Protein backbone atom coordinates (compact mmCIF):
# COMPACT_ATOMS: atom_id res chain seq x y z
CA UNK A 1 0.00 0.00 0.00
CA UNK A 2 1.44 3.30 -1.10
CA UNK A 3 2.18 6.12 1.29
CA UNK A 4 1.13 9.40 -0.29
CA UNK A 5 1.68 12.90 0.93
CA UNK A 6 -1.45 14.96 0.56
CA UNK A 7 -0.28 18.55 0.07
CA UNK A 8 -2.96 19.66 2.54
CA UNK A 9 -2.91 16.90 5.18
CA UNK A 10 0.44 15.18 5.05
CA UNK A 11 1.37 11.54 4.67
CA UNK A 12 -1.47 9.05 4.60
CA UNK A 13 -1.99 5.46 3.49
CA UNK A 14 -3.15 4.80 -0.04
CA UNK A 15 -6.48 3.49 1.21
CA UNK A 16 -7.48 7.09 1.93
CA UNK A 17 -6.89 8.10 -1.67
CA UNK A 18 -8.42 7.64 -5.07
CA UNK A 19 -6.26 7.63 -8.19
CA UNK A 20 -7.61 9.65 -11.09
CA UNK A 21 -5.19 8.70 -13.86
CA UNK A 22 -2.80 10.80 -15.88
CA UNK A 23 -2.48 14.43 -14.89
CA UNK A 24 -2.16 17.59 -16.96
CA UNK A 25 -4.78 16.61 -19.52
CA UNK A 26 -6.97 19.68 -19.56
CA UNK A 27 -10.51 19.40 -20.82
CA UNK A 28 -10.64 21.26 -24.14
CA UNK A 29 -12.12 24.73 -23.85
CA UNK A 30 -14.42 24.18 -26.79
CA UNK A 31 -14.92 20.47 -27.37
CA UNK A 32 -17.22 21.13 -30.29
CA UNK A 33 -14.25 22.35 -32.30
CA UNK A 34 -12.35 19.09 -31.93
CA UNK A 35 -12.64 16.48 -34.63
CA UNK A 36 -13.56 12.94 -33.60
CA UNK A 37 -9.97 11.75 -33.45
CA UNK A 38 -8.82 14.66 -31.32
CA UNK A 39 -11.77 14.14 -28.99
CA UNK A 40 -10.96 10.41 -28.77
CA UNK A 41 -7.38 11.25 -27.86
CA UNK A 42 -8.56 13.56 -25.11
CA UNK A 43 -10.92 10.91 -23.79
CA UNK A 44 -8.92 7.75 -24.17
CA UNK A 45 -5.29 8.06 -25.23
CA UNK A 46 -2.75 8.07 -22.43
CA UNK A 47 1.01 8.29 -22.12
CA UNK A 48 1.18 5.23 -19.86
CA UNK A 49 4.92 5.66 -19.29
CA UNK A 50 7.30 3.16 -17.81
CA UNK A 51 9.08 5.61 -15.57
CA UNK A 52 7.96 9.00 -14.31
CA UNK A 53 4.22 9.47 -14.41
CA UNK A 54 2.34 12.60 -13.43
CA UNK A 55 -0.99 11.48 -12.09
CA UNK A 56 -4.02 12.77 -10.29
CA UNK A 57 -4.95 11.69 -6.80
CA UNK A 58 -7.78 12.69 -4.54
CA UNK A 59 -7.60 12.51 -0.75
CA UNK A 60 -11.06 11.05 -0.93
CA UNK A 61 -11.40 9.76 2.60
CA UNK A 62 -9.63 12.75 4.04
CA UNK A 63 -9.86 16.37 2.97
CA UNK A 64 -11.35 15.49 -0.40
CA UNK A 65 -8.89 17.63 -2.33
CA UNK A 66 -7.42 16.65 -5.65
CA UNK A 67 -3.69 16.98 -6.20
CA UNK A 68 -1.02 15.64 -8.50
CA UNK A 69 1.81 13.22 -7.89
CA UNK A 70 4.93 12.44 -9.81
CA UNK A 71 5.58 8.73 -9.40
CA UNK A 72 7.94 6.21 -10.94
CA UNK A 73 5.80 3.43 -12.37
CA UNK A 74 8.73 1.01 -12.14
CA UNK A 75 9.62 1.38 -8.47
CA UNK A 76 6.33 3.06 -7.47
CA UNK A 77 8.44 5.66 -5.70
CA UNK A 78 6.65 8.99 -5.35
CA UNK A 79 9.05 11.75 -6.21
CA UNK A 80 6.77 14.62 -5.33
CA UNK A 81 3.16 15.57 -4.77
CA UNK A 82 1.90 19.02 -5.67
CA UNK A 83 -1.27 21.03 -5.76
CA UNK A 84 -3.62 21.18 -8.70
CA UNK A 85 -2.70 23.98 -11.00
CA UNK A 86 0.98 23.84 -10.18
CA UNK A 87 3.33 22.84 -12.99
CA UNK A 88 4.85 19.41 -13.19
CA UNK A 89 7.99 19.57 -11.04
CA UNK A 90 11.41 19.09 -12.45
CA UNK A 91 12.51 15.65 -11.31
CA UNK A 92 15.81 15.49 -13.09
CA UNK A 93 17.58 14.87 -9.79
CA UNK A 94 15.38 11.91 -8.91
CA UNK A 95 17.48 9.58 -10.99
CA UNK A 96 14.41 7.99 -12.54
CA UNK A 97 14.08 7.58 -16.30
CA UNK A 98 11.59 9.99 -17.76
CA UNK A 99 10.17 8.35 -20.89
CA UNK A 100 8.75 11.64 -22.07
CA UNK A 101 12.26 13.04 -22.32
CA UNK A 102 13.75 9.88 -23.78
CA UNK A 103 11.21 9.94 -26.55
CA UNK A 104 11.69 13.53 -27.52
CA UNK A 105 15.44 13.07 -27.56
Amino acid sequence: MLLLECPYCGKRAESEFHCGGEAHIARPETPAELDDQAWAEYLYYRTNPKGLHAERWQHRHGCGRWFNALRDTVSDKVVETYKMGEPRPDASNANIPDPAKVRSA
Partner: protein
Amino acid sequence: MRRFSLASLLQESTKGHTGWERQWRAPEPKKHYDVVIVGGGGHGLATAYYLATVHGVTNVAVIEKGWIGGGNTGRNTTIIRSNYLFDESAALYNHAMNLWEGLSQELNYNIMFSQRGVLMLAHNHHDVVTFKRHVYANRLNGVDNEWLTTEECKAFCPPLDTSRNIRYPVMGGALQRKGGTARHDAVAWGYARGADARGVDIIQNCEVTGLQRNADGSVKAVETTRGTISCNKVGVVAAGHTGVVMGRFGLRMPVESVPLQALVSEPVKPVFPCVVMSNAVHAYISQSDKGELVIGAGTDQYNSYSQQGGIHVTNHTLDAICELFPQFTRMRMLRSWGGIVDVTPDRSPILSKTPIKNLFVNCGWGTGGFKATPGSGHVFAHMLATGEPHRINAPFSLDRFRTGTLIDEAAAAAVSH
Protein backbone atom coordinates in the same frame (compact mmCIF):
# COMPACT_ATOMS: atom_id res chain seq x y z
CA MET B 1 9.75 -32.31 -34.25
CA ARG B 2 9.75 -35.49 -32.25
CA ARG B 3 6.19 -36.47 -31.47
CA PHE B 4 5.11 -36.75 -27.87
CA SER B 5 3.17 -39.88 -27.05
CA LEU B 6 2.92 -42.53 -24.41
CA ALA B 7 5.05 -44.73 -26.63
CA SER B 8 7.83 -42.17 -27.01
CA LEU B 9 7.67 -41.45 -23.29
CA LEU B 10 8.00 -45.13 -22.39
CA GLN B 11 10.79 -45.56 -24.88
CA GLU B 12 12.69 -42.65 -23.37
CA SER B 13 12.04 -43.97 -19.88
CA THR B 14 14.29 -46.89 -20.66
CA LYS B 15 17.10 -44.55 -21.77
CA GLY B 16 16.94 -42.02 -18.99
CA HIS B 17 15.15 -39.51 -21.23
CA THR B 18 18.36 -38.62 -22.98
CA GLY B 19 16.78 -38.67 -26.42
CA TRP B 20 14.46 -35.69 -26.08
CA GLU B 21 15.36 -32.74 -28.22
CA ARG B 22 15.00 -29.04 -27.54
CA GLN B 23 11.39 -28.00 -27.63
CA TRP B 24 12.39 -24.89 -29.56
CA ARG B 25 15.71 -23.70 -30.93
CA ALA B 26 17.69 -20.69 -29.80
CA PRO B 27 18.56 -19.17 -33.18
CA GLU B 28 20.44 -16.01 -33.97
CA PRO B 29 18.17 -13.44 -35.58
CA LYS B 30 18.25 -13.45 -39.37
CA LYS B 31 18.71 -10.29 -41.41
CA HIS B 32 15.15 -10.32 -42.68
CA TYR B 33 11.79 -11.81 -41.85
CA ASP B 34 8.46 -11.54 -43.57
CA VAL B 35 6.82 -10.97 -40.23
CA VAL B 36 8.28 -9.95 -36.88
CA ILE B 37 6.10 -10.52 -33.86
CA VAL B 38 7.06 -8.42 -30.86
CA GLY B 39 6.21 -10.35 -27.72
CA GLY B 40 6.69 -14.03 -26.94
CA GLY B 41 3.69 -14.61 -24.75
CA GLY B 42 0.86 -16.98 -25.52
CA HIS B 43 -0.80 -14.60 -27.97
CA GLY B 44 2.39 -13.84 -29.87
CA LEU B 45 3.45 -17.47 -30.08
CA ALA B 46 -0.03 -18.53 -31.15
CA THR B 47 0.07 -15.85 -33.83
CA ALA B 48 3.35 -17.26 -35.13
CA TYR B 49 2.00 -20.79 -35.00
CA TYR B 50 -1.10 -19.96 -37.04
CA LEU B 51 0.89 -17.83 -39.48
CA ALA B 52 2.90 -20.94 -40.20
CA THR B 53 0.14 -23.54 -40.14
CA VAL B 54 -2.83 -21.67 -41.57
CA HIS B 55 -1.17 -19.17 -43.87
CA GLY B 56 2.08 -20.91 -44.73
CA VAL B 57 4.06 -17.86 -43.60
CA THR B 58 7.08 -19.38 -41.92
CA ASN B 59 9.76 -16.72 -42.30
CA VAL B 60 8.67 -15.32 -38.99
CA ALA B 61 10.48 -14.20 -35.85
CA VAL B 62 8.98 -13.93 -32.41
CA ILE B 63 11.05 -11.44 -30.45
CA GLU B 64 10.85 -11.66 -26.70
CA LYS B 65 12.55 -9.28 -24.31
CA GLY B 66 12.78 -11.89 -21.55
CA TRP B 67 11.73 -15.51 -21.69
CA ILE B 68 8.72 -16.78 -23.59
CA GLY B 69 5.56 -17.05 -21.58
CA GLY B 70 7.13 -15.03 -18.78
CA GLY B 71 4.59 -12.22 -18.75
CA ASN B 72 0.87 -12.50 -18.23
CA THR B 73 0.76 -15.94 -19.87
CA GLY B 74 2.55 -17.38 -16.87
CA ARG B 75 0.88 -15.14 -14.32
CA ASN B 76 -2.82 -15.51 -14.85
CA THR B 77 -5.38 -17.70 -13.15
CA THR B 78 -5.95 -19.73 -16.34
CA ILE B 79 -9.70 -19.31 -16.53
CA ILE B 80 -11.21 -20.05 -19.91
CA ARG B 81 -14.77 -19.10 -20.85
CA SER B 82 -16.57 -17.49 -23.73
CA ASN B 83 -19.91 -16.44 -22.27
CA TYR B 84 -19.55 -12.78 -23.15
CA LEU B 85 -22.55 -10.54 -23.66
CA PHE B 86 -22.02 -8.68 -26.89
CA ASP B 87 -22.08 -10.46 -30.23
CA GLU B 88 -18.61 -9.20 -31.09
CA SER B 89 -17.03 -10.52 -27.88
CA ALA B 90 -18.92 -13.78 -27.94
CA ALA B 91 -17.69 -14.41 -31.48
CA LEU B 92 -14.08 -13.71 -30.53
CA TYR B 93 -13.97 -15.72 -27.33
CA ASN B 94 -15.99 -18.58 -28.73
CA HIS B 95 -13.63 -18.76 -31.66
CA ALA B 96 -10.96 -19.32 -29.04
CA MET B 97 -13.09 -21.87 -27.20
CA ASN B 98 -13.46 -23.92 -30.37
CA LEU B 99 -9.70 -23.92 -30.82
CA TRP B 100 -9.04 -24.78 -27.18
CA GLU B 101 -11.08 -27.92 -27.52
CA GLY B 102 -8.64 -29.74 -29.77
CA LEU B 103 -5.52 -27.83 -28.90
CA SER B 104 -3.62 -30.52 -26.98
CA GLN B 105 -3.95 -32.86 -29.91
CA GLU B 106 -3.22 -30.22 -32.52
CA LEU B 107 -0.07 -29.06 -30.74
CA ASN B 108 0.86 -32.55 -29.61
CA TYR B 109 1.38 -30.97 -26.21
CA ASN B 110 -0.88 -31.66 -23.28
CA ILE B 111 -2.07 -28.22 -22.26
CA MET B 112 -4.43 -29.86 -19.76
CA PHE B 113 -7.53 -28.10 -20.97
CA SER B 114 -10.07 -29.05 -18.37
CA GLN B 115 -13.67 -28.12 -19.05
CA ARG B 116 -14.69 -28.12 -15.44
CA GLY B 117 -17.35 -25.46 -15.87
CA VAL B 118 -17.21 -21.79 -14.99
CA LEU B 119 -19.91 -20.62 -12.62
CA MET B 120 -20.56 -16.88 -12.27
CA LEU B 121 -22.49 -16.04 -9.13
CA ALA B 122 -25.30 -13.53 -8.82
CA HIS B 123 -25.69 -11.72 -5.51
CA ASN B 124 -28.36 -9.14 -6.26
CA HIS B 125 -31.22 -8.45 -8.63
CA HIS B 126 -28.96 -6.57 -10.99
CA ASP B 127 -26.60 -9.57 -11.22
CA VAL B 128 -29.52 -11.87 -11.90
CA VAL B 129 -30.80 -9.77 -14.77
CA THR B 130 -27.33 -9.21 -16.17
CA PHE B 131 -26.44 -12.90 -16.13
CA LYS B 132 -29.78 -13.92 -17.60
CA ARG B 133 -29.13 -11.40 -20.34
CA HIS B 134 -25.81 -13.15 -20.91
CA VAL B 135 -27.43 -16.58 -20.89
CA TYR B 136 -30.03 -15.58 -23.47
CA ALA B 137 -27.61 -13.71 -25.67
CA ASN B 138 -25.16 -16.59 -25.55
CA ARG B 139 -27.84 -19.09 -26.54
CA LEU B 140 -28.57 -17.13 -29.68
CA ASN B 141 -24.86 -16.88 -30.40
CA GLY B 142 -24.28 -20.59 -30.00
CA VAL B 143 -22.35 -20.17 -26.77
CA ASP B 144 -23.23 -22.53 -23.97
CA ASN B 145 -24.31 -20.80 -20.79
CA GLU B 146 -27.16 -21.73 -18.49
CA TRP B 147 -28.88 -20.29 -15.47
CA LEU B 148 -28.59 -22.21 -12.21
CA THR B 149 -30.76 -21.69 -9.18
CA THR B 150 -29.10 -21.23 -5.80
CA GLU B 151 -29.66 -24.91 -5.03
CA GLU B 152 -28.19 -25.93 -8.36
CA CYS B 153 -25.16 -23.74 -7.67
CA LYS B 154 -24.63 -25.58 -4.38
CA ALA B 155 -24.94 -28.95 -6.07
CA PHE B 156 -22.44 -27.92 -8.74
CA CYS B 157 -19.96 -26.46 -6.24
CA PRO B 158 -20.40 -28.05 -2.79
CA PRO B 159 -17.95 -25.79 -0.90
CA LEU B 160 -20.10 -22.78 -1.79
CA ASP B 161 -22.00 -21.26 1.12
CA THR B 162 -25.50 -20.74 -0.23
CA SER B 163 -27.03 -19.94 3.13
CA ARG B 164 -28.60 -16.57 3.87
CA ASN B 165 -25.90 -15.95 6.50
CA ILE B 166 -23.38 -14.41 4.18
CA ARG B 167 -23.32 -10.70 3.50
CA TYR B 168 -24.50 -11.05 -0.08
CA PRO B 169 -26.34 -14.36 -0.38
CA VAL B 170 -26.08 -16.26 -3.65
CA MET B 171 -29.16 -15.74 -5.79
CA GLY B 172 -28.18 -18.11 -8.58
CA GLY B 173 -25.52 -18.23 -11.22
CA ALA B 174 -24.65 -18.53 -14.86
CA LEU B 175 -22.78 -21.70 -15.74
CA GLN B 176 -20.73 -22.29 -18.83
CA ARG B 177 -20.04 -25.99 -18.78
CA LYS B 178 -17.49 -25.77 -21.57
CA GLY B 179 -15.49 -23.26 -19.57
CA GLY B 180 -12.61 -24.31 -17.38
CA THR B 181 -8.88 -24.01 -17.06
CA ALA B 182 -5.69 -24.96 -18.88
CA ARG B 183 -2.04 -25.18 -17.93
CA HIS B 184 -0.80 -21.71 -18.83
CA ASP B 185 2.89 -22.44 -19.32
CA ALA B 186 2.13 -25.42 -21.51
CA VAL B 187 0.13 -23.21 -23.84
CA ALA B 188 3.12 -20.97 -24.44
CA TRP B 189 5.52 -23.89 -24.75
CA GLY B 190 3.21 -25.91 -26.96
CA TYR B 191 2.75 -23.05 -29.42
CA ALA B 192 6.47 -22.30 -29.30
CA ARG B 193 7.35 -25.88 -30.10
CA GLY B 194 4.78 -26.05 -32.88
CA ALA B 195 5.87 -22.76 -34.42
CA ASP B 196 9.55 -23.59 -34.11
CA ALA B 197 9.06 -26.92 -35.83
CA ARG B 198 7.60 -25.08 -38.80
CA GLY B 199 10.54 -22.73 -39.10
CA VAL B 200 9.57 -19.81 -36.89
CA ASP B 201 12.55 -18.31 -35.06
CA ILE B 202 11.91 -17.68 -31.38
CA ILE B 203 14.42 -15.11 -30.22
CA GLN B 204 14.55 -14.64 -26.46
CA ASN B 205 16.39 -11.96 -24.51
CA CYS B 206 15.95 -9.56 -27.36
CA GLU B 207 14.29 -6.24 -26.74
CA VAL B 208 12.79 -4.06 -29.43
CA THR B 209 14.12 -0.54 -29.21
CA GLY B 210 12.77 1.20 -32.28
CA LEU B 211 11.21 1.08 -35.72
CA GLN B 212 12.63 2.02 -39.08
CA ARG B 213 10.26 3.13 -41.78
CA ASN B 214 10.36 3.31 -45.57
CA ALA B 215 9.94 6.53 -47.48
CA ASP B 216 6.19 5.90 -47.72
CA GLY B 217 6.02 5.60 -43.95
CA SER B 218 5.54 1.86 -43.92
CA VAL B 219 7.44 -0.56 -41.74
CA LYS B 220 10.99 -1.26 -42.84
CA ALA B 221 12.75 -2.84 -39.90
CA VAL B 222 12.73 -3.20 -36.17
CA GLU B 223 15.70 -2.16 -34.11
CA THR B 224 16.53 -4.53 -31.32
CA THR B 225 19.15 -5.09 -28.67
CA ARG B 226 20.46 -7.78 -31.01
CA GLY B 227 20.63 -5.62 -34.08
CA THR B 228 18.33 -4.30 -36.76
CA ILE B 229 15.99 -6.82 -38.31
CA SER B 230 14.35 -5.89 -41.57
CA CYS B 231 10.82 -7.09 -42.11
CA ASN B 232 7.69 -6.57 -44.16
CA LYS B 233 5.26 -6.48 -41.30
CA VAL B 234 5.34 -6.10 -37.57
CA GLY B 235 2.78 -7.33 -35.08
CA VAL B 236 3.07 -5.97 -31.55
CA VAL B 237 1.67 -8.40 -28.98
CA ALA B 238 3.28 -7.03 -25.84
CA ALA B 239 0.41 -6.98 -23.34
CA GLY B 240 1.32 -4.75 -20.39
CA HIS B 241 4.27 -3.32 -22.30
CA THR B 242 2.27 -2.34 -25.37
CA GLY B 243 2.45 1.28 -24.39
CA VAL B 244 6.22 1.08 -24.04
CA VAL B 245 6.80 -0.64 -27.38
CA MET B 246 4.35 1.54 -29.30
CA GLY B 247 5.86 4.57 -27.60
CA ARG B 248 9.23 3.58 -29.04
CA PHE B 249 7.51 3.46 -32.43
CA GLY B 250 6.16 6.97 -31.84
CA LEU B 251 2.54 6.03 -31.19
CA ARG B 252 0.39 6.70 -28.16
CA MET B 253 -2.25 4.12 -27.34
CA PRO B 254 -5.59 4.07 -25.55
CA VAL B 255 -4.23 1.66 -22.95
CA GLU B 256 -3.02 1.92 -19.39
CA SER B 257 -0.92 -0.66 -17.56
CA VAL B 258 -1.96 -1.64 -14.05
CA PRO B 259 -0.88 -4.36 -11.63
CA LEU B 260 -3.14 -7.38 -11.37
CA GLN B 261 -2.54 -9.72 -8.46
CA ALA B 262 -3.22 -13.40 -8.01
CA LEU B 263 -2.36 -16.01 -5.42
CA VAL B 264 -2.41 -19.71 -4.74
CA SER B 265 -2.96 -21.69 -1.59
CA GLU B 266 -0.92 -24.63 -0.42
CA PRO B 267 -1.84 -27.73 -2.39
CA VAL B 268 -4.56 -29.94 -0.98
CA LYS B 269 -6.42 -33.00 -2.17
CA PRO B 270 -9.32 -32.35 -4.59
CA VAL B 271 -11.88 -30.13 -2.88
CA PHE B 272 -13.01 -27.67 -5.52
CA PRO B 273 -14.57 -29.10 -8.67
CA CYS B 274 -15.02 -26.11 -10.95
CA VAL B 275 -14.24 -22.45 -11.51
CA VAL B 276 -16.30 -19.90 -9.61
CA MET B 277 -16.34 -16.20 -10.32
CA SER B 278 -18.17 -13.53 -8.41
CA ASN B 279 -18.03 -10.05 -9.86
CA ALA B 280 -20.11 -8.58 -7.07
CA VAL B 281 -17.73 -9.52 -4.29
CA HIS B 282 -14.61 -9.74 -6.52
CA ALA B 283 -13.46 -13.36 -6.30
CA TYR B 284 -12.25 -15.90 -8.81
CA ILE B 285 -11.23 -19.37 -7.73
CA SER B 286 -10.42 -22.81 -9.05
CA GLN B 287 -8.18 -25.68 -8.00
CA SER B 288 -5.18 -26.61 -10.09
CA ASP B 289 -4.25 -30.16 -11.00
CA LYS B 290 -1.47 -29.83 -8.47
CA GLY B 291 -4.01 -29.11 -5.75
CA GLU B 292 -3.48 -25.40 -5.16
CA LEU B 293 -6.49 -23.13 -4.93
CA VAL B 294 -5.84 -20.56 -7.63
CA ILE B 295 -7.35 -17.22 -6.73
CA GLY B 296 -7.53 -14.10 -8.82
CA ALA B 297 -7.33 -10.81 -6.99
CA GLY B 298 -8.09 -7.38 -8.29
CA THR B 299 -6.11 -4.65 -9.95
CA ASP B 300 -4.50 -1.81 -8.07
CA GLN B 301 -5.87 1.63 -8.81
CA TYR B 302 -2.73 3.17 -10.29
CA ASN B 303 -0.59 2.56 -13.35
CA SER B 304 2.47 0.48 -12.65
CA TYR B 305 5.01 -1.75 -14.30
CA SER B 306 6.18 -3.19 -11.01
CA GLN B 307 4.38 -6.55 -11.03
CA GLN B 308 3.66 -5.84 -7.41
CA GLY B 309 0.57 -4.43 -5.76
CA GLY B 310 -0.62 -3.71 -2.27
CA ILE B 311 -1.59 -6.30 0.31
CA HIS B 312 -5.01 -4.70 0.73
CA VAL B 313 -5.93 -6.01 -2.70
CA THR B 314 -5.18 -9.61 -1.78
CA ASN B 315 -6.82 -9.17 1.61
CA HIS B 316 -10.02 -7.96 0.03
CA THR B 317 -10.01 -10.86 -2.38
CA LEU B 318 -9.60 -13.36 0.42
CA ASP B 319 -12.38 -11.64 2.34
CA ALA B 320 -14.64 -12.57 -0.53
CA ILE B 321 -13.26 -16.09 -0.88
CA CYS B 322 -13.74 -16.87 2.81
CA GLU B 323 -17.16 -15.28 2.72
CA LEU B 324 -18.24 -17.57 -0.10
CA PHE B 325 -16.28 -20.63 1.00
CA PRO B 326 -15.91 -20.43 4.80
CA GLN B 327 -14.20 -23.81 4.97
CA PHE B 328 -11.16 -22.28 3.26
CA THR B 329 -10.47 -19.82 6.07
CA ARG B 330 -7.77 -22.08 7.52
CA MET B 331 -6.12 -22.63 4.16
CA ARG B 332 -2.90 -20.75 3.61
CA MET B 333 -1.65 -18.40 0.95
CA LEU B 334 1.44 -19.99 -0.54
CA ARG B 335 2.44 -17.56 -3.26
CA SER B 336 1.16 -14.27 -4.52
CA TRP B 337 2.33 -12.38 -7.54
CA GLY B 338 1.47 -9.59 -9.89
CA GLY B 339 1.16 -9.17 -13.60
CA ILE B 340 0.97 -6.00 -15.67
CA VAL B 341 -2.25 -5.84 -17.59
CA ASP B 342 -3.05 -3.37 -20.31
CA VAL B 343 -6.52 -1.99 -19.95
CA THR B 344 -8.48 -0.18 -22.67
CA PRO B 345 -11.25 2.35 -22.08
CA ASP B 346 -13.97 -0.19 -22.91
CA ARG B 347 -12.03 -3.10 -21.44
CA SER B 348 -12.20 -4.96 -24.73
CA PRO B 349 -9.04 -5.81 -26.66
CA ILE B 350 -7.57 -4.05 -29.65
CA LEU B 351 -6.60 -6.16 -32.68
CA SER B 352 -6.01 -3.54 -35.24
CA LYS B 353 -4.17 -1.79 -37.95
CA THR B 354 -2.30 1.28 -36.78
CA PRO B 355 -1.51 4.66 -38.29
CA ILE B 356 1.77 3.11 -39.48
CA LYS B 357 1.40 0.95 -42.55
CA ASN B 358 2.21 -2.72 -41.96
CA LEU B 359 2.34 -2.22 -38.20
CA PHE B 360 -0.38 -4.13 -36.41
CA VAL B 361 -1.22 -4.31 -32.75
CA ASN B 362 -2.88 -6.90 -30.54
CA CYS B 363 -3.34 -5.64 -26.99
CA GLY B 364 -5.72 -4.42 -24.34
CA TRP B 365 -6.82 -7.80 -23.07
CA GLY B 366 -6.86 -6.46 -19.57
CA THR B 367 -7.52 -9.11 -16.97
CA GLY B 368 -8.93 -11.67 -19.39
CA GLY B 369 -6.47 -12.40 -22.15
CA PHE B 370 -5.46 -15.96 -21.40
CA LYS B 371 -8.82 -17.43 -22.38
CA ALA B 372 -8.58 -15.84 -25.80
CA THR B 373 -5.05 -17.04 -26.62
CA PRO B 374 -5.82 -19.42 -29.51
CA GLY B 375 -8.54 -17.23 -31.00
CA SER B 376 -6.48 -14.09 -30.68
CA GLY B 377 -3.48 -15.72 -32.33
CA HIS B 378 -5.63 -17.20 -35.06
CA VAL B 379 -7.31 -13.96 -36.16
CA PHE B 380 -4.19 -11.86 -35.65
CA ALA B 381 -2.27 -14.25 -37.88
CA HIS B 382 -4.95 -13.70 -40.50
CA MET B 383 -4.44 -9.97 -40.18
CA LEU B 384 -0.67 -10.20 -40.44
CA ALA B 385 -0.87 -12.55 -43.41
CA THR B 386 -3.52 -10.68 -45.39
CA GLY B 387 -3.12 -7.14 -44.12
CA GLU B 388 -6.82 -6.99 -43.37
CA PRO B 389 -8.79 -7.89 -40.25
CA HIS B 390 -10.50 -11.22 -39.94
CA ARG B 391 -14.29 -10.90 -39.77
CA ILE B 392 -14.10 -11.72 -36.07
CA ASN B 393 -11.56 -9.08 -35.08
CA ALA B 394 -12.80 -6.30 -37.34
CA PRO B 395 -14.91 -4.71 -34.56
CA PHE B 396 -11.88 -4.57 -32.27
CA SER B 397 -10.18 -1.76 -34.16
CA LEU B 398 -8.44 1.29 -32.80
CA ASP B 399 -10.91 3.33 -34.80
CA ARG B 400 -13.73 2.42 -32.46
CA PHE B 401 -12.46 4.94 -29.98
CA ARG B 402 -12.96 7.65 -32.59
CA THR B 403 -16.38 6.51 -33.71
CA GLY B 404 -17.67 5.55 -30.28
CA THR B 405 -18.48 1.98 -31.36
CA LEU B 406 -17.23 0.66 -28.05
CA ILE B 407 -17.66 -2.93 -26.93
CA ASP B 408 -18.13 -2.27 -23.27
CA GLU B 409 -18.79 -5.55 -21.49
CA ALA B 410 -17.84 -4.11 -18.13
CA ALA B 411 -20.17 -1.13 -18.41
CA ALA B 412 -22.96 -3.47 -19.40
CA ALA B 413 -22.44 -5.39 -16.18
CA ALA B 414 -21.93 -2.33 -14.01
CA VAL B 415 -24.18 -1.71 -11.07
CA SER B 416 -26.06 1.54 -10.92
CA HIS B 417 -29.56 1.92 -9.60
